[in-house]
């Protein structure tokens, strides 16, 4: 297991380095440079002096390799530079918003798991009946419904039916849990539906596959109670791929939050990202992409380790 862990950690390093290189190259692919784009984006005339000053501040007047070394050294110290918009450190801007996004992500995961595992299992047990079809349509619809539109519809429904809108001001959970939950449950639901769709499909196919195994037939043949067969033999084995999918999708949640936070006007990482792109705040975009990709790589790592821990066959391969 230790050997596997070390191997897996070592594999992660080139990926994260590669991500950093891609971002560095992408942000220097702009016509002109980020300072020109940023200042031109404001639409007013800018003096050459201002441009030069801003360039010097960001170190863009230095040769490319110096810029690259500075950038990589900064990343190593978790220093992402300063936002071109607010002037505050990028790590600060991200830090104050991270908790909110993480909370929605966790709540969406809980919703997804609570929906997916029962629905997927029942669809597999009643394969090719109307129950199965209903679950499959529900999950395919989940993949097709844009989460931002679902969010708008949720708000609209409350507005028309109850003349009530979810609170717009964010309350941290430790201040007032009830106000916090009544605000965040809706974006979590809008994001979680899509998430649950992916997990439901995986649960269904995993349970179907396991039910065809010899050991299930053996368990049934020796007269075991059906529910026990299901719980001890089928579900336990079917959960492996489901855990993987849930883990992988968790990493994708950051992407889903980009649009949902916009709809519910929540000041999280996703909204920060959209604002950064809209305001040509390249240092902030750079830092955010780096963070999201790193979270993604780390989540994949955790999923792999979990998988290897649950299924010994993996780590001995």
């Amino acid at each position, binding site marked *: 297991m230790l050997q596997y862990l070390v191997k897996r950690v070592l594999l992660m390093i080139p990926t994260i380095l590669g991500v950093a290189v891609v971002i560095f190259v992408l942000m220097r692919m702009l016509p002109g440079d980020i300072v020109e784009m940023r200042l031109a984006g404001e639409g007013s005339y800018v003096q050459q002096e201002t441009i030069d000053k801003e360039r010097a501040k960001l170190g863009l007047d230095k040769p490319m390799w110096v810029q690259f070394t500075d950038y990589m050294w900064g990343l190593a110290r978790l220093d992402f530079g300063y936002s071109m918009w607010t002037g505050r450190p990028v790590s600060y801007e991200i830090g104050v918003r991270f908790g909110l996004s993480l909370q929605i992500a966790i709540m969406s995961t809980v919703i997804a798991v609570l929906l997916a595992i029962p629905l997927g299992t029942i669809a597999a047990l009643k394969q090719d009946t109307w129950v199965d079809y209903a679950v499959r349509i529900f999950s395919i619809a989940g993949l097709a419904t844009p989460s931002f539109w679902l969010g708008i519809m949720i708000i*609209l429904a409350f507005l028309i039916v109850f003349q009530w809108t979810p609170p717009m001001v964010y309350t941290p959970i430790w201040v007032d849990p009830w106000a916090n939950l009544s605000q965040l449950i809706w974006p979590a639901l809008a994001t979680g539906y899509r998430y649950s769709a992916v997990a439901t499909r995986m649960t269904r196919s995993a349970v179907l596959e396991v039910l065809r195994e010899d050991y299930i037939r053996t368990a049934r043949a020796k007269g075991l109670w059906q529910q026990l067969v299901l719980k001890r033999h089928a579900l336990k084995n079917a959960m492996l791929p489901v855990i993987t999918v849930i883990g992988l999708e968790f990493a994708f949640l950051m992407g889903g939050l980009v649009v949902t936070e916009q709809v519910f006007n929540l000041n999280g990482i996703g909204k920060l990202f959209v604002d950064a792109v809209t305001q040509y705040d390249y240092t902030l975009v750079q830092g955010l992409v780096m963070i999201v990709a790193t979270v993604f790589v780390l989540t994949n790592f955790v999923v792999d380790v979990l998988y290897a821990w649950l299924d010994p066959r993996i780590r001995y391969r």
Partner: protein
Amino acid sequence: MSSQPYDLALAAAAEPTRLRQWVDAALKFSREKPLGAAGAVIVVIMILAAVLADFIAPYNPVATDYGAMLAAPSADHWLGTDEFGRDVLTRIIYGARTALLVGFSAAFIGATLGLVIGVASAFFSGWIDLVIQRIVDVFISFPLIILALAVVAALGTGTDRVILAILIPMIPRAARICRSGALAIREMPYVDAARAAGFRDRRIILRHMVPNVIAAYLIVLTSFLGQAILLEASLSFLGLGVQEPTPAWGLMLHGGASQYAESAPWMAIYPGIAITLAVFGFNLFGDSLRDALDPRLKTQ
């Protein structure tokens, strides 16, 4: 020159049977996969709407009518109008054109480039494969929309840039899937036989390997179509995709739709239904196609 009439005659003779084969295949498909056929119907309706938009749309999609701002659905405007008095139904019909243009170009180019890279990676193996796979690893580490937004940040907005922003993150995903398909085929006896027969690399790749990866390619392509349409809608909704006044479903939900949600809910409801139906149709069709083409890759 001398063989041409003969070829033509042969082709003419083969034509009806080939058509019959297609019709038979389509009928068999709809009998065995009713959900897939339903998806195909939605896709066909969408394509027809996009192609015939000029003839079937009741109004001009960009013409403003300040006498009919935020008009509720009525006989004149079946799905109402937006804050500029533009007909919502008309903009949804023309929006199919934008969605299909972006969806098809992004999915097709992305999947095809991925196919070429994936099969080449598997065929040449060794260090070329290793390098390509590490690069693919890096690009897969960005969630789809995050990489797309980063590309938008670098290149700017507009229909052509959106296509680029969507297809770039799709290439590595297609390459990964096509490579794993091609790896299995590389070990097949018929590829060895082709090699033993002295065929060149190019012929082996194009004639023997690519046709057998086509199933994987088509599956990737159809699943990308739905995703590309959804991604375009998301980017446009954020104001970072297709720009006004181009009619696009996501863009119709940007700004006015939330602002007037209470007084003019039709502005928010119908474009969303269009997106959902379109993606639903492509996904249903793609899923069934996957089952039909490759039973080993059963629907998850």
